[in-house]
């Protein structure tokens, strides 16, 4: 007998005492929890996102289409990296004023090569106001998962209010599970020393989130 058959057999025998339960999944779970917490206008939801991002030490900026290239230029200039990673389909105008040499992540690039790049600029799939979270789904304006992981400085542009949802349930509704997803809430951190939070371990230690409103 294979272990598969053995385990499935054990499960069935283990449940022999339970009365047959024909209730479908839909009736087995009462979803009496809230879809979102509190009533907010669209503007207030964006404000809450900014507040919660900042609470977990992300640096938040607000700008519009016109000012965005200058803001990105400034943010990069403050760090002064020689190279900046960009995903394949980042809107080119975002980087039009930036000084560092743009590097594209190719499938054959090794992690060691990417480790020489200090900054990365991406878009995002969705942002969650209640938790201060941005979610990346590997779309062409976000790139492979590794490009937002190895560099120490991540600039993420969120289109507000279109890409902002209030809550975790609303975010999951918008996401496609078939894509590789990365939920990011602030820069990398640890609570492993005396259960106290310290920012900055393996992921980017500086996370800058740009809230981009339509012009």
């Amino acid at each position, binding site marked *: 007998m294979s272990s598969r058959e053995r385990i499935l057999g*054990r499960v069935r025998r283990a*449940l022999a005492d339970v009365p047959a339960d024909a209730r479908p999944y839909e009736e087995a779970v009462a979803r009496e929890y809230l879809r979102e917490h509190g009533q907010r206008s669209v503007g207030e939801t964006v404000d809450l996102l900014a507040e919660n991002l900042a609470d977990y030490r992300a640096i938040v900026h607000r700008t519009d289409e016109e000012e965005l290239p200058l803001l990105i230029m400034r943010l990069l200039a403050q760090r002064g990296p020689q190279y900046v990673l960009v995903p394949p389909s980042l809107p080119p105008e975002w980087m039009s004023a930036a000084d560092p040499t743009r590097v594209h992540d190719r499938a054959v690039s090794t992690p060691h090569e990417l480790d020489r790049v200090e900054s990365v600029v991406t878009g995002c799939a969705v942002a969650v106001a209640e938790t201060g*979270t941005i979610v990346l789904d590997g779309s062409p304006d976000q790139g*492979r*998962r590794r490009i937002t992981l190895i560099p120490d400085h991540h600039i993420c542009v969120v289109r507000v209010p279109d890409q902002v949802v209030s809550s975790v349930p609303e975010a999951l509704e918008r996401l496609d599970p078939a894509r590789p997803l*990365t939920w*990011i809430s602030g820069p990398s*951190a640890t609570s492993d*020393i005396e259960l106290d939070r310290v920012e900055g371990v*393996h992921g980017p230690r500086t996370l800058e989130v740009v809230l981009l409103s339509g012009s």
Partner: protein
Amino acid sequence: MSGTFVGMPAFPRAAREAVGNTTLRGNLRHATHTIRDKRARAVAELDDWAALREAGKQIKDHTLRHLDRYLVQVEEAVTAAGGTVHWAADADEANDIVARLVEETGESEVVKVKSMATQEIGLNEALQARGIHAYETDLAELIVQLGKDRPSHILVPAIHRNRGEIRDIFRSEMGEWGRPAPENLTDTPAELAEAARLHLREKFLRAKVGISGANFVVAETGTLVVVESEGNGRMCLTLPETLISVVGIEKIVPRWQDLEVFLQTLPRSSTAERMNPYTSMWTGTTDEDGPRTFHLVLLDNGRTDTLADEVGRQALRCIRCSACLNVCPVYERAGGHAYGSVYPGPIGAILSPQLRGTGSEIDASLPYASSLCGACYEVCPVAIDIPEVLVHLRERVVQGGPAVRGGNRVVLRPAKGHAAERAAMRAAQWAFTRPGALRTGQRLASRTRRLHPRTLPGPGRAWSGTRDLPAVPAEPFRDWWQRTHGGKGGAK
């Protein structure tokens, strides 16, 4: 300190030693109190916490009720998404599968995401025996691994170490494993985190094989979810060419939507955050992004035996948040090592004796490692009634009875050392079913109450050594009732 839990003494003996260690008690008190208050605030932010908790419980119960169906669904979905599914009935089989998969890649080192399942099965030791080095990359796991220590907490395995001890371990041990700790390393947490970053960086960048567990597996989509803080998880899940995930069969949730419950309750219960810094979700393999080969090892190792226990099966709802450890007065004083398992604290006291059986001294003693105060049940985000299961397991230890071990029905013999308890219970049963004898006995006890000893003699001495015997009233309740109410208007 050795890196294994085999041959641990019973809880009371191990705990007595730990309680005498003032550094340990100070470290634990500081850490658990810090997180306790933060968790309460994070939970209070959500008005619908009770409804989320109930939904989490119902999702897990429904899944366990139909676990065979959902396991098959996971297998189908993961396979369809480009992964390979393996089934492991016990620890040895799981270790063998993982070792074989690593050997097939030709590699002799792997990087690991923190995973309770792989600790439970002793994967690192099993790999070492086959010449494969496993590097732990979670900061706390790194501290434990470098210190040749054992984990003492589910979320923060090095919770028993303070910053000074961590610095000493980094200074003396990092060089043995790779890049040494920086000169002049101080004990500030930020510097210690930086030292870990530098030490592990080279390992991440060259790793070809990653090993993880998972917090959740979604049956309908075949998606695995890993919740973490540091980014070491992301490194192990995305940089290597091969990813092997060892996941207990109870980690399944039926649908994508179910994550909306647990992604709200888990971070707030464990690290007291609205959301943990990083959550990775992947479904099989993705072209040109992340590992090209993905293996999922579904692990039983005592879980189906636990599922067979009507009362005890609720322990399988556990999402490993560790909130119960942080509020437990026994854990706070005894520390995690005394529990003799990778699962310490209240949840460990009901999980270890079910996964491993109550055959060993330590496992038979774990159901007693509690004052039954119920704080663990209060904070549990999936409403596991830990006190109920503790009492149930005490009964099993003392009385024996039917259970399932290794998939087979067995009848457990009563444990040794509980003869006095059993005799007392039998005597109580005899007296309570004979009202005349009970009345006579109670009157006798009242009349002789001045002569009662303050502590019990013989086998009862241990029990009364830490307790006051209840004072016997001058008159039994039933006599008092008869005298004052004349038997009118009340139960006869």
